[in-house]
């Protein structure tokens, strides 16, 4: 009967691909939505669930089908839990911004308005959902980007595919990533406008040299318009702004201006912050 051959062929196919990525085992596209994944698994269950073949197969064949089905179930669970973690979003509330440590809207309003009119940041919503604000670190740490959840997820995926796994180390740096302090410090990374613009728009799982949440200024514009040393001071100024330390920000911005006197962007920013300081002594 064709049903019998169908399921046996399917089981052989799955067992041959054992260990490959979940979407390969489910025979669907990698970017399938949660609903598509569920439908695909239901389709497999309808034809290949071992319970449906208790009477048609020999014990060995049934064992093979059961094993294949169990493997596919594992793949389904992996895809489903990944989908559960990424698809949930909720409306942004005002207290989210405060949790992020964003400066008082009044403080940053002037530069924000000015620059936002020029280039609206495309990934403005994304960092709020993905970044864990409590783990924003100063621009030295390479680990800054990975949030605890993202880190755990990466480790889990790695462990199943990697061969030499020691799972309880959640913060193992990936191969090719430099440790903080050993190789490139962020300022030398930063000057290349291309690299900054690339990392700035990426999700934070990579070794992004701390492009923390920048509420006021899109990083591309900032990076392109100043030298590397000035960018370092500028980042420090941003951190000061986040803390609400306006005077510190003025100092850092002054240093930045000294490092790159030609940048009109920095001068504008300095002027804006200084106005703010004068408004709120």
């Amino acid at each position: 009967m064709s049903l019998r051959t169908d399921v046996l062929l399917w089981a052989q196919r799955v067992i041959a691909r054992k260990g490959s990525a979940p979407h390969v085992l489910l025979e669907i596209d990698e970017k399938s939505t949660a609903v598509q994944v569920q439908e695909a698994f239901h389709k497999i269950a309808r034809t290949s669930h071992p319970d449906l073949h208790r009477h048609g197969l020999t014990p060995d064949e049934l064992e093979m089908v059961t094993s294949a089905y169990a493997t596919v179930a594992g793949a389904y669970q992996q895809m489903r839990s990944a989908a559960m973690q990424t698809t949930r979003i909720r409306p942004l509330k005002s207290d989210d911004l405060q949790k992020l440590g964003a400066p008082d809207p009044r403080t940053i309003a002037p530069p924000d308005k000015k620059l936002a009119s020029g280039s609206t940041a495309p990934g403005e919503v994304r960092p709020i959902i993905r970044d864990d604000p409590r783990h924003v670190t100063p621009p030295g740490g390479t680990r800054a980007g990975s949030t605890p959840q993202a880190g755990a997820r990466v480790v889990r995926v790695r462990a199943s595919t990697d061969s030499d796994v020691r799972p309880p180390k959640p913060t193992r740096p990936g191969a090719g990533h430099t440790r903080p302090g050993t190789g490139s410090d962020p300022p030398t990374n930063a000057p290349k406008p291309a690299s900054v613009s690339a990392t700035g728009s990426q999700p934070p799982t990579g070794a992004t040299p701390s492009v923390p949440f920048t509420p006021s200024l899109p990083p591309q514009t900032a990076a392109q318009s100043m030298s590397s040393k000035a960018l370092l001071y500028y980042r420090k100024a941003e951190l000061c702004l986040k803390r609400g330390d306006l005077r510190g920000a003025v100092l850092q911005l002054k240093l930045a201006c000294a490092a790159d006197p030609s940048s009109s962007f920095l001068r504008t920013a300095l002027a804006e912050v200084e106005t703010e300081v004068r408004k709120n002594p």
Partner: protein
Amino acid sequence: MAIALGIDLGTTNSCAAVATPTGVEFILGQRAERVHPSVVAFPATGGVVVGADAKRYRLTEPHHVIHSAKRFIGQNIRAPLVQLALTGIRYKVTEGPNQQPIVVVRDRRMTMPEISSHVLLYLKRCAERQLGESVNDAVVTVPANFTDAQRQATKEAGRLAGLNVMRLINEPTAAALAYGFGRNQDQLICVFDFGGGTFDVSILRINGEVFEVLASDGDYFLGGDDLDRALAEVLAAECNRTLQFDPRQHPVLMMKLMMGAEAIKCHLSANDAAEGEIDGIDLPNGTTGSLPFSLTRKQFEDMISGYINRTIEVTKQVIAQAGLLPSDISDVLCVGGSTRIPTVRQRLADTFHREPNIKINPDEVVAQGAAIQAGSLSGSIIAGTGMGARDAVMTEAHSPLIYGGATIPKGPLARPVLLDVNPSTLSVQTAGGYAERLLDKNSPIPIERTRVFTTARDNQTRVEIDCCRGESRRYTENEPLGHLLLEGLPPKARGDLKIEVCFRVDADGILHVRASDVDSGARQEARLQVFGAPTAGEGT
């Protein structure tokens, strides 16, 4: 075609059914009752009495009547909840080998599976008498959150009763099957199973003939018994106050109060107030007194509100685990006798903003689902056994088609496919005392997952793999399941050896663990030793 029985082996009551072409036929007891108390009595006259007859011995010989055996089956007697449950029973339980509870009755020592096997055997004999054929196969239901050891113990009980347990299915899933089979709809339902001793909630998606459990959780020490006990304690205090006599030291009297409490509870489900007397209370001065009582439904609801709050809390958690909102659920099934309590239904209606489905019989629906699954697995004719057949508009799907053997028709009413889940996260212990997760809670079963581990020290020649269940990242905070030992490994530097650990949960929800050394030509395999399992020697 062999007859396969579907058995709902409950804490207080059991029920059995068999699927026939025209519908589900329930197995009747000697007085034509469909529901059989899960009570086993060992009377002074000898022999074993099961069911409604055994219940009558509760007053005369409370020490020799074994009830609520399901609360102890496959349990570690040292677990705190088990110790708590032991205070509520009148028969004697001691610790046996492998820390399992042993019942001592009339100098006989019996394991919990043996007690349960008496109930199963009784049901089997009733079925054989009714059907006129020998019955060997069965599908037995268990609470969704039963552990590995509890499932194995239940299977063992079936084996002792001479039944081939084809499958253990979860009670909420069985109820959903009975409800949705033949309905041919795509819907999300919630099964709220509040029985005599256990409480379960499952969220299912019914997609045609596929029944997928999305999330499941519960509490196996929460049920109608607890409500009875809460009420009995109040009655005992009342007795102490009016008759100046504390019945809590007297097992017979406490049992009498428990029975009275159960009757009051049932009465209050239909009426607003209960008033009466509990007679036959033997006072220490030789006379017999009676305890008058007067309770309103409101008073009773206040007494049990703590338990009800817990059930609603778990229900909300499960909905969140499934990634849904209460408004996504299109039907709420009430399963188990305790869902007859009006306040339970009211709270459910408040939670889901819709009335729960009360068209199903809460005592029988689980056995019905088990019978459908048993019929499906044994290849019997099962069209028209689900409730969908009754409720749905008649279509060609409900014509008396015959589905036999491996020929599965392409029509809309194929065999049901149950996609059940494992109830808790399964992990192994890794260096540093962490629990490394292999199988997540609520993953579909049967499922298989392989992970590669390595050694923590140089020249390590043996590794011990400890398995546990639970959600904590620390091994010690989880419930240990058992361990396996892999020996004779080639000495290598740490990190060089690859140890493949494969977790497989079969369709019964029982875990099988396999560990092997990847590189060595001869694969070394070890099997899991389960703590608390009744057959410790056999492994899985």
